């Protein structure tokens, strides 16, 4: 059977991996290609780069990082952040990215999903959704989780699927950074609304949070950033905990 995926996420700004969720007090952690390579050797099933560069130079640097990663890392990797046009998608795929994630640009122009899927295939079209609980619903947030679009996140996930998204990267703005585990209710709500793989994101503080989301929802993959950085926990440790708790994972 297909294994649940463990995905480290690297936030990249102007060519360096940085730490710091609120775009303030960012601290450089190292070279993205080197870190991605180390994670893959440690058993990461996939890598996600989130480009938070503010400048054109920074985004150009990201393309070079993608090129070097494709030559040195032998697991799939996704690039997201700042993807606005079909040309941005093309440029990242050409440089060697396996998949491209689109977030705000897809909200503003859903046609971007349709075009990307038609031209490059569903398998490389990832729609990233930042969702926040509002009353008894979840709303789609943009601008790093700060702007409420008023859109229903579940409905948006369904639309993304119908437009040809191959995967949904679902981040809970409520649990992101809290380190108390994934947003299980949100994850389950989206997973049961669509028939494409969903990656859960936001809230991991310890390895046990992975088996929790895998055992309580039908999510396909779990993403985490901070617990893997600075060697708080390794991917290997997370996988050991998953195996102990009966989750089907890939032994690297």
């Amino acid at each position, binding site marked *: 059977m*297909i294994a649940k*995926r463990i995905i480290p996420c690297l936030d990249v700004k102007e060519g360096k991996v940085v730490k710091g969720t609120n775009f303030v007090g960012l601290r450089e952690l190292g070279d993205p290609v080197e870190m991605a390579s180390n994670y893959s050797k440690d058993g990461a099933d996939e890598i996600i780069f989130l480009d938070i560069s503010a400048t054109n130079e920074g985004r150009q640097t990201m393309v070079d990082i993608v090129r070097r990663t494709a*030559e040195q890392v032998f697991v799939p990797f996704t690039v997201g952040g700042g993807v606005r046009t079909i040309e941005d998608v093309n440029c990242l795929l*050409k440089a060697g990215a396996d998949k491209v994630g689109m977030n705000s640009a897809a909200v503003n122009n859903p046609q971007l999903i349709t075009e990307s899927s038609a031209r490059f295939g569903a*398998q490389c079209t990832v729609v990233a959704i930042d969702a926040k609980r509002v009353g008894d619903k979840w709303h789609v947030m943009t601008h790093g989780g700060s702007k409420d679009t008023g859109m229903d996140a579940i409905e948006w996930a369904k639309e993304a699927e119908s437009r040809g998204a191959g*995967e949904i990267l679902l981040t809970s703005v409520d649990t992101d950074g809290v380190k108390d585990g994934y947003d299980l209710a949100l994850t389950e709500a989206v997973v049961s609304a669509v028939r494409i793989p969903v990656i859960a994101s936001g809230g991991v503080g310890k390895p046990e949070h992975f088996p929790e989301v895998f055992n309580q929802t039908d999510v396909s993959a779990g993403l985490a950033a901070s617990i893997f950085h600075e060697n708080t926990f390794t991917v290997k440790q997370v996988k050991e905990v998953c195996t102990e708790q009966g989750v089907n994972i890939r032994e690297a």
Partner: protein
Amino acid sequence: MIAIVDYGMGNVASVRTAFQRLGYDVEITDSIERLKVASHIILPGVGSFQAAAREINQRHLAEPLRKLAEEKPFLGICLGMQLLFDKGYENGSSDGLGLIPGEVNRMETEYILPHIGWNQLQIENNNQAFAPFQDKHVYFVHSFQARTEQQYLVATADYGTKVPGIVQNGHVYGMQFHPEKSGEVGVDLLKVFMKETNSDRGQLA
């Protein structure tokens, strides 16, 4: 020299690096002259069957590729494997290269599609060369699958249906998953392909 066929369907940097890591000289090309002097032909590919068939035809590569496959070891990866079969039905019906009998249809499974992620290989027909890869995880990403006869199956994966993972007809091989994205296991699989085809220059069945 190993030639990777460049026909505009997806990035091939990782495929090239994987073979380079094994110590081979690799060239990415769509020149028939260069393909003719290669020892092995690698047909990669990401995208839809129809688009790929169109690209191959526009470059007048279909007939030369068929001929090359008679003469030398040939490996199709992902969409490149699907193109080895007679016909594909993604976005309508298109002709494949017809190197292995069979057709490519949308997967019929109760599970979600695309089939994305690491799935385990089950070795078929008691294949000896690939036996060490029983239960090993490799990275799949696809929604269409080949349907072929049991005799051409080297390995399959279970995704609510039996998914051909590695197929073979003589020295023509196909891998539905991405060996170049399957970590060390993937590189080892390419090594076995090279080893098997260096000793076996057999004809198509």
